[in-house]
């Protein structure tokens, strides 16, 4: 029968690796556009910084919408690609940020995120690339996509 080994956590070591925040940059807006519409030759900005029309040889290939939702505490940047008829083609996360604990209640701590766009490289604890231990809910993204569809699904042509 296997014996378990007891391991006592050294309190000091835990504090030193404490992770108040975690951020992951996946794709820039440009990369995500190309990814969603590989055949597109031009992305025409329909609404500044938010909506683009993907065009391929004079035809509309679809629409690309940049949006953000609040994750646990901080913004998650994501993009919804719509088909020319306004259906969801794909949803891609561009940047993920997350934080826990008392820091988030401090406005000065939050201020460092204001004005950051997906192009800025915001890396806190950049060496932490993979986190396990808690399932993160994507409910807010699902709600965001619904909102994007309600706002643009029938309006973009």
């Amino acid at each position: 029968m296997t014996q378990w080994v007891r391991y006592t956590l050294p309190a000091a070591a835990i504090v030193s690796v404490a992770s108040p925040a975690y951020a992951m940059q996946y794709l820039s807006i440009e990369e995500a556009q190309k990814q969603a519409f590989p055949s597109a030759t031009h992305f025409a900005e329909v609404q500044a910084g938010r909506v683009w029309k993907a065009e391929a040889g004079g035809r509309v290939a679809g629409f690309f919408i940049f949006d953000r939702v609040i994750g646990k505490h901080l913004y998650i940047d994501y993009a919804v690609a719509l088909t020319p008829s306004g259906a969801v083609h794909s949803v891609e996360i561009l940047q993920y940020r997350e934080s826990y604990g008392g820091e988030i209640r401090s406005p000065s701590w939050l201020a460092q995120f204001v004005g950051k766009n997906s192009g800025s490289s915001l890396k806190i604890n950049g060496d932490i690339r993979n986190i396990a231990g808690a399932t993160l809910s994507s409910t807010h993204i699902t709600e965001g996509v619904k909102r994007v569809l309600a706002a643009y699904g029938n309006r973009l042509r």
Partner: protein
Amino acid sequence: MATASDKVRRARPLLGTFVEIEVAGMVKAEMNAAIDAAFEVVASVHRLMSFHEPDSDVSRLNREAWIRPVSVHAWTFEVLQAAVKMHRRSNGMFDISVAPALQAMGLLPQMNDDVPIDTKTRSFDAIELLEGQRVRFRQANVRIDLGGIAKGFAVDRAVEVLRGLGAASGLVNAGGDLAAFGGEPQTVHIRHPRDPRRLICSVEVTDEALASTARRFDPFQSADTASSAIIDPGSRKPASAVDGTTVRAPCCMIADALTKIVMIAGTEAAELLEHYNASALLISTDDDVQITPDWHHAGYLAA
């Protein structure tokens, strides 16, 4: 050492969480195509095995399998086979038929027109697997949820797709259930279940899977953990043996399912872990961290 441009890492909202996929060792367009294909396979698993989607295999089984045999997709059948095997081997501790208890807790929705089910009744070995990928429930009050195993299965399928398309190395992480293959080991940080600001340790993962489960915590509500979303089939109440666990195993489906057993059985799960060539770390309710002796084979604690 690969540079950042040799790799592509992307994320999509799937399986109710964030699924991250990274590949390396191909030209960029190929890596993106491989990631697209891997996301697609994860979405397929979601469509087949979601409790929430009315057209999924799971929903069809819950509606009809107690009346007549229902045929399911080969993947659903494969997951059910693994679940039934683990149910028997764990003496009923792993049980995909605890859906009514999760419904009673509000963690799963009630289905339209479904009869209310007494959460106190329990049935051992309630799922019958038949020829031709058909499934029948032995009792009328059985409702299944594959939430404790399907995410791991989806990770395994995604890894298979990436390998099949020629990726030299990669990682698939579905909200903490992950698998890595090829290349250099991936470092994974494991959070403390009761205080997500604290990292317990980091683990090096290569050509194996890692799955974690903890008692639920919702930082919107409170920093404290609430009860577990894992039901002890014996008591039909949330498991309370340990606060959290991380299991490493050759494949993610098995790692995923074994976390549920460790949450219920605590250290008693040792034999079963050994049977599945798995090792585990668990955090008991009094903050003790315990590991199986082979946990260290590639990992180290408190980095």
